[in-house]
Structure formats: structure tokens, C-alpha cells
């Protein structure tokens, strides 16, 4: 918390004071001064600005804005939905109520403990639901919210029964903060603190991992993100925010019972976050204030605001999934794009693929990740007898391949032969029924995909394995996930350690982007690039993971013939200049013959032939597999 507060105080004046006293000590001093001055704000300034009743409504609004930040973190960043968020708020509120109301502890103990309790409840709920893909978290939280409302919040052992709990605004001993305007100032400071933590989440590996998970879990894993763990982290953090928000809400209204945190509140939070704009913290806070404060000041709405909210929610998700915030942003982006296009046309440049691929970035291996090699003569990758079936369909039957270090091995075959399935089996993106996969001399068939990625397996995807909503720079940062070695606590506080690691990663990302010649796209969302450009960024990102093996799935698909020809040269650079090994799926046979050292032909899920590329493609059964019986 000290770290967060210090960041809040990084004004020019604060920096001058810091230069006088030097570093950390000045932070402490500034916080002390701010704390000393705070009672003046709560007791003198705020009461002059706000009426008692207005301040109460605004405090509730601020608490719900904090709750909206909480759900936004989960739904907007990590793409997981909670339909029982009100129960997490309730857990925090009851915890703080029991501490402050029944045990006489001050509010500044109660509210953070509320956050801890919210986080703990979320963590426990997340364990059964988040290791699965899909809407399981929504179901578990829905059922938990129902159980909390009907039962848990009414249990006398937990909350003191149906009567509810009082939440006094105890400052210390028997001193209470009675005035609503003063409490509003407290609530705003807490909201600000959560806001700053949220900012830190977004500028560190946490936010990038969350966003990658929302956009494509498989891609996140391929960059070494432990998806289950990060989903659990997102929900736990969201639970902490919710617990704090609930405690704030409770202290604002002074009393809570099981009906305070009902299903309607959970629904309202979903409406606020989706309509405001998933992932846009400012929009979400604004929407929360709008939906909670507005109806209480305008008389005669009689619930029509909720009807309007529900209609807006359906309209938003079916027509503008990004919410109101992104409607504005999309308009800005389109305008900027039009202008860039006009400028480029004026200068006579072709803004699409220039037909030539830039050279691949050298990207020296970071000191933390030296080159890895299998012991002795063992091949880099060896898959033995791999079988995969989906329901009744046998996609891969007893397939074996060997990839020696330092060359390009090709994998060809007709559509549906099982090439991508073999990739998925090797990289851990599909469950194998039998077979072994040995990488760098170790058996990896039982390891999850992210663990194989960490050991130096990088793979591309047919539909581009990038987080497409993120910018080119952010994708390069995401690719260096394993190099972001700071702890989650460092990330939340954005400590010096996290800051310095992030600076180094950013430098490496810029270097890579510059080597690709893509400086002008540094902050462009990947989805706005052409397919060919996306492919180049993808290969660049794979290199940024510092892999030993690059598995490329049809890199030439969607490229112009000129670009594809150029691709051959770039691919050869990988083993020849950069010392990497490549496993390549390709339909473009001239390209395959040009670059591959060894070739495997896959047909109907089985390895049909292997050997020197030029010889293999002339074998009778290979020709037959490709062209049918008549040709052979």
C-alpha cells in the first residue's frame, strides 16, 4: 500500500521534496504529511462541499464503482464471468462488520480484512471452476450467490443470523466518523488506491497474461502462461477488490443483511461493466456512478432505469461487444487509419505488404536463458507412437517423428492428414491417447502446454498465435512472459524491481520491432495489421520467447508469392544464423523443397514416408496420397 500511495504522490512538488530528502524516506514523509492532513479534509473541507444525504448516495456510488473495477478485472481483462459477485461484496462487508461492530476494531482494519476475506472466498470458489474451460465459473458463482443469500449470510455462526450486522465507521477506540461527507473522502481514497493497483495490473505481466487468456487460452499457453493459475489469480484479486468494495458499501450505509447483496446487485454489476466497456477502467467507473447515483437523484424513474440498463446490455453485447467506451475508440481508430492511408498514398507508398519480408531480429539470448541442448547425440525433439482421437475419429495413429537440432524438418500431407494435430500433440495443446514426446532429452508428454513452452518449444498457429487486441509492443512483452520474473506482489505495487524488469523487457521488445522494421506499428493493435504483417510479428514474438524449437504452422498461407519466396530466405536464417531448429508445416511444396533438410509425409493420421525432401516427394505412395490413384 505504501508503494501505491507513493506513486499517487509523484507530483512535481513531491519530486522536489524527494530530491531534498532522497528516495524512500521522502515517500514515507509525504505519506505521513498526507495522513496528517487527511482529517482536515474529512472534517472541514468535505462537509462544506457536500450535503449529508448527497454524500451518502455518492459514497454508495463510489463503493459500487470499486465493485465494478473488481468485476472489470475479472470479466474485462481475463474474460471470466462471475454471476455471484454480490456475494463476494457481502463476504467483505460481513467480515468488516463483525470486526468493527462486534470486536471494536477500527475501520482501517475492517476494510482491508474484508478484502482478504473476499479474496479467500474467491480463491476457494475458483479452484473447482477455473481449471475448466467455459462458463463453469459463472455457474459456481451463481450457485454460491444463491446459497449465500438464502443460507450462508443468515447462518448465526457466520454472520449472526438474519438480523444482519451493523458496520460502525470506527476510526479508533470509540471515535466514529459520523459525517457522510467525511466518509465520502475516505471512500474516494480507497477507490483511488484500487484504481492505481488496477493500473499496475495492466502495465505488468499480470494484465498481459489476463488479456491473452481472454483472447485465446491456447495462445496464452504457447507463450508460457499457466492459464489455470492466472485465471485463479485474476479471480482472487477480483475477490479482494470486491471484499473491499463490499466493506466500503457496508460502512457507507451502516448496516447490512443477507438481502443487501442479492442477485440483482450481481446483475447490475454485469450490466455496468459490459455497457460501460469491458476492460476500460474509466468507462466502467463512470458507468457505475451513473447507474447508482443518477437514479437516486432523479425522482420518478420507478425502475425504468433498470429496464433501460438491461436493453442497453443486450444492445451492447449483440452490436458493440466492446461497450460504449470502445465505440468511441473505434471511431478514433478508424479516423487515424484513414489519415495514415491518405498520407501514405500522398507519398506514393504501398501501405499493404511491400512484398518483402524484413530480416528477423537477432534478439540475443537473455542471460537468464542460455541455449539449451539435449545431452549427447539425442535429437532435440522425438515423438514416438503418438495417437490422438476425437470421439470416434482417429486423427493421429501411432505417428513418430524425430527432429535433430539445428535444421529445418518439414511436415507435409493433404488437408486433414493430421499435421496440425501432431503439432498440438507435441506442444501439449491436445490430449494424446498414447505415445511419448521427448524434448531436450526429457519426457514432456505429461506436461501442460505452458510448461513445454517454458522449456523452449515455440509454436505458431494457423490463425496467428497472437493476442490480437493487444498492440505489437504488448505482444512482444507477452512473449517475454517467462523473463518477467518479478513476483505478483511486485507487480501489484509496481515496485522498483518490477519497474526495472519491465523497462528491460520493453527495450528488448522495441529492439525486436525495430529489427522487423515495424516501428510505425509499435502501438497498433495486431488485428489492424495485414495477415502477412501479423505472421511476421508472430514469428518475431516466437523468437522473443528465446526458444530452441520453432514449430511453424503454414507460415506462407495468405502471403503474396513474392513474400512467400522471401520467406524461404528468412526461414533458413533461423537455423543458419540464429542457431534455432524449425519444424515446419507447409502446403507450398517449392518452399518446402527449398528450405527443408528432412521431410515427413503424413496421410490419414499416419506417417507415410520420410527422408530427403526431393526424393520423398517422388515416392509413388506420396504422389498417390496427394493426387489420387489415377496419377500414380
Amino acid at each position, binding site marked *: 500500500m505504501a508503494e501505491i500511495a507513493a506513486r499517487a504522490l509523484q507530483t512535481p512538488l513531491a519530486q522536489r521534496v524527494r530530491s531534498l530528502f532522497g528516495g524512500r524516506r521522502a515517500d514515507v514523509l509525504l505519506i505521513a504529511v498526507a495522513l496528517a492532513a487527511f482529517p482536515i479534509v474529512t472534517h472541514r473541507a468535505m462537509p462544506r462541499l457536500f450535503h449529508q444525504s448527497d454524500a451518502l448516495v455518492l459514497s454508495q456510488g463510489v463503493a459500487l464503482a470499486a465493485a465494478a473495477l473488481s468485476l472489470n478485472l475479472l470479466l474485462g481483462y481475463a474474460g471470466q464471468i462471475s454471476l455471484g459477485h454480490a456475494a463476494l461484496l457481502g463476504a467483505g462487508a460481513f467480515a468488516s462488520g463483525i470486526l468493527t461492530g462486534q470486536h471494536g476494531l477500527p475501520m482501517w482494519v475492517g476494510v482491508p480484512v474484508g478484502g482478504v476475506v473476499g479474496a479467500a472466498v474467491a480463491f476457494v470458489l475458483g479452484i473447482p471452476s*477455473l481449471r475448466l474451460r467455459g462458463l463453469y465459473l459463472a*455457474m459456481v458463482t*451463481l450457485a454460491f450467490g444463491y446459497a449465500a443469500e438464502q443460507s*450462508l449470510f443468515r447462518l448465526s455462526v457466520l454472520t449472526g443470523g438474519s438480523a444482519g450486522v451493523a458496520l460502525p465507521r470506527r476510526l479508533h477506540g470509540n471515535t466514529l466518523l459520523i459525517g457522510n461527507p467525511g466518509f465520502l473522502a475516505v471512500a474516494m481514497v480507497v477507490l483511488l488506491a484500487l484504481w492505481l493497483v488496477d493500473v499496475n495490473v495492466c502495465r505488468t505481466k499480470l494484465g498481459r497474461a489476463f488479456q491473452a487468456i481472454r483472447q485465446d487460452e491456447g495462445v496464452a499457453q504457447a507463450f508460457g502462461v499457466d492459464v489455470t493459475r492466472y485465471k485463479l489469480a485474476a479471480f482472487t484479486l477480483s475477490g479482494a477488490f470486491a471484499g473491499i468494495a463490499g466493506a466500503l458499501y457496508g460502512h457507507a450505509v451502516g448496516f447490512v443483511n443477507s438481502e443487501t447483496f442479492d442477485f440483482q446487485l450481481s446483475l447490475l454489476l454485469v450490466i455496468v461493466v459490459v455497457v460501460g466497456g469491458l476492460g476500460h477502467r474509466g468507462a466502467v467507473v463512470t458507468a457505475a456512478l451513473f447507474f447508482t447515483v443518477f437514479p437516486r437523484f432523479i425522482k420518478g424513474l420507478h425502475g*425504468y432505469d433498470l*429496464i433501460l440498463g438491461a436493453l442497453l*446490455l*443486450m444492445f451492447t*453485447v*449483440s452490436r458493440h461487444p466492446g461497450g460504449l467506451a470502445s465505440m468511441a475508440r473505434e471511431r478514433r481508430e478508424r479516423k487515424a487509419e484513414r489519415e495514415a492511408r491518405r498520407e501514405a498514398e500522398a507519398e506514393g507508398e504501398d501501405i499493404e505488404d511491400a512484398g518483402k519480408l524484413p530480416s528477423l531480429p537477432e534478439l540475443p539470448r537473455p542471460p537468464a536463458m542460455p541455449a539449451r541442448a539435449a545431452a549427447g547425440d539425442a535429437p532435440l525433439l522425438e515423438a514416438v507412437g503418438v495417437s490422438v482421437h476425437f470421439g470416434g475419429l482417429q486423427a493421429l495413429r501411432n505417428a513418430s517423428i524425430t527432429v535433430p537440432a539445428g535444421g529445418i524438418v518439414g511436415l507435409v500431407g493433404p488437408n486433414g492428414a493430421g499435421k496440425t494435430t501432431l503439432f498440438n500433440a507435441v506442444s501439449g495443446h491436445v490430449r494424446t491417447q498414447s505415445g511419448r514426446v521427448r524434448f531436450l532429452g526429457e519426457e514432456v508428454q505429461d506436461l501442460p502446454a505452458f510448461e513445454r513452452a517454458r522449456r523452449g518449444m515455440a509454436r505458431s498457429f494457423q490463425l496467428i498465435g497472437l493476442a490480437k487486441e493487444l498492440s505489437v509492443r504488448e505482444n512482444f512483452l507477452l512473449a517475454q512472459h517467462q523473463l518477467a520474473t518479478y513476483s505478483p506482489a511486485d507487480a501489484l505495487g509496481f515496485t522498483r524491481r518490477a519497474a526495472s524488469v519491465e523497462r528491460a523487457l520493453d527495450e528488448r521488445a522495441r529492439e525486436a520491432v525495430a529489427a522487423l522494421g515495424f516501428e510505425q506499428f509499435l502501438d497498433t493493435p495486431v488485428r489492424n495489421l495485414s495477415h502477412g504483417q501479423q505472421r511476421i510479428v508472430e514469428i518475431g514474438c516466437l523468437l522473443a520467447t528465446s526458444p530452441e524449437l520453432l514449430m511453424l504452422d503454414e507460415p506462407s498461407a495468405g502471403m503474396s508469392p513474392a513474400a512467400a519466396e522471401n520467406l524461404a530466405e528468412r526461414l533458413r536464417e533461423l537455423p543458419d544464423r540464429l542457431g534455432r531448429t524449425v519444424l515446419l508445416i507447409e502446403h507450398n511444396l517449392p518452399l518446402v523443397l527449398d528450405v527443408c533438410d528432412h521431410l515427413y509425409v503424413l496421410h490419414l493420421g499416419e506417417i507415410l514416408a520420410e527422408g530427403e525432401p526431393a526424393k520423398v516427394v517422388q515416392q509413388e505412395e506420396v504422389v498417390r496420397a496427394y493426387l489420387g490413384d489415377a496419377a500414380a
Partner: protein
Amino acid sequence: MGQTLVVGTISGGIYGLMAVGLVLVFKGTRVLNFAQVEVGTLALYAAWEVTTQHGAPWIVGAAAAMVLALAIGLLFERLIVRPMGDAPRMTVAVATIGLLSLMLAFESVYFGPSPRILRPPIAGLGTKILGVYVSPTQWLSLGLVIVVGVGLAAFLRRTDFGLGVLAAADDPTAVRLVGVRLSRVSAFVWGTSAVLSAIAALLIEPTIGVIAPGALAGLFASGLAAALVGGLTSLSGAFVGGLVVGLAESLVGHYVVSSSVPGIPALVVFATIVAVLLARPGGLLGGRVATA
């Protein structure tokens, strides 16, 4: 004890209907419909309007309820689900949350918070069999659950269109190739599940006693747990799940003194969902589920 089993079996059958509605939509369009039960609640208001306000017999009210539910299901499918096309399924699920919120808000604005009461479908005393008392409404529930369940199963398994519905989730292309239009499948599952929700609501209403916004949340939670027991994709599994949840609720309620622990059905439902996810996420009868 016998009484407990009868109550559990009958409410279990009703949960099964709710669960089948959820599973149909999930199989047909891969969407979890969070508005499922509220369609039934709104339909109950229609039945109340027709019977209590205008003096029509129960059966007319029930018909009105089912017609309204069907209209809501089809409209939502046509106006929201279909235009969303291939949008992520999560997004469509959020749209159903919008529909749920809309119906809740509409109910409280139009009908107000005061609860409404629907008279039971069949008046009169129940019959006593082997020392167990069964009310006319319970007989009706039992009969209707069996008729609807068997009828739906026959339709889905015996007709080409029904088989298309069952296969739609696994292989949309194959379904299109055998001449079943996917838009029809989509309309069918949304419409049918809405009607199933209305039937389940009509049957559970005498037990709940009142009609109010969100009053049937428990029916939805139980239906969801039941569907999950069947792995979200098995129709028979959903029915079995309904019985499991219904019996568990009434048995636990029978043995735990309810004054010390309020809301036992809610706890049973929550525990069932967590237990299924921990032990067999693919359902008791289903297969594997993709893990992260």
C-alpha cells in the same frame, strides 16, 4: 420418509424439465441461457392475468403462459442470438443475462413488488397410497413430466429434424449437409426451452406459492445443477440430474433441523455443482471436458 421421497421425485422431475431446456439450448447453440427460468416466471404472470384477473380456467392460463414463453424464446433467438452469428459464446451468454435483467426489471416495474398467487390447477383433496399423501397437482406434475419427457425424446430420436438438433453442436456442417437448416435448429431449441421453462414454472408454482420477480431462482439453480450432472450435453443425464438434486434436497431437508440452518436447498444445489465439477466435470454420464 415415503412422503419425502415422493416430494423429492416430483420436484426432481420438474428440475429435469428445466435442465432439459438448458441442455437443449446448450447442445443446439453452445450457449448457457441464464434467462431460462425468468421466462417461466413472466409466463406465470400471464397465467395469473388470465385466470385470477379475468376468471378463465387454469388450463387457459397455462396455455397463455406457454404461448408467451414461446414468443419470448423465438423473439430473443431472432433479434439477439441469430444476429450475433459466430460471436464468442460467452458474449451470447451475457446477452441472456441482459434478457434476464430485462424481465426482472419489467416484472418489478409493471407488477410491483407485491407477490401474486395462482390458484392450483386441480382443486380437491389428494389421494393416499401406501400411507403417502399425493395431491392432485403432484399427480398432474408426474404425468406431465413423463409425457413431455417421453414425447421430446421420441421427437428428437425418431425424426430427421430431431437428430439434426442433437448433432448440431458436434458437427454443424454435417447437419447442414443432410438438409436441416441451422437457423431452424436454433429457433427450435430456444422456443422449446422457453416452453419447457413455462411448464416447469407452472408445475413448481403450487409448491413455491407466490409469483414475484426472481421467485423461481431456486428452480433455476436446481435445474443448472441437474444439467451439470448430465454434463450439460446429455438430455437423459439432465433428467437423472433433476431426480438426484430433487431427492438430495428433500432428504437433506428431512434430516437436518431446518430452524438452525436456513436455505438448505440452496446449499444442496451449491454443493452438488461443486462436487460434480471436482469429481466429474463431464457429468455422470458425459465424457471429458477441456481443461485449461
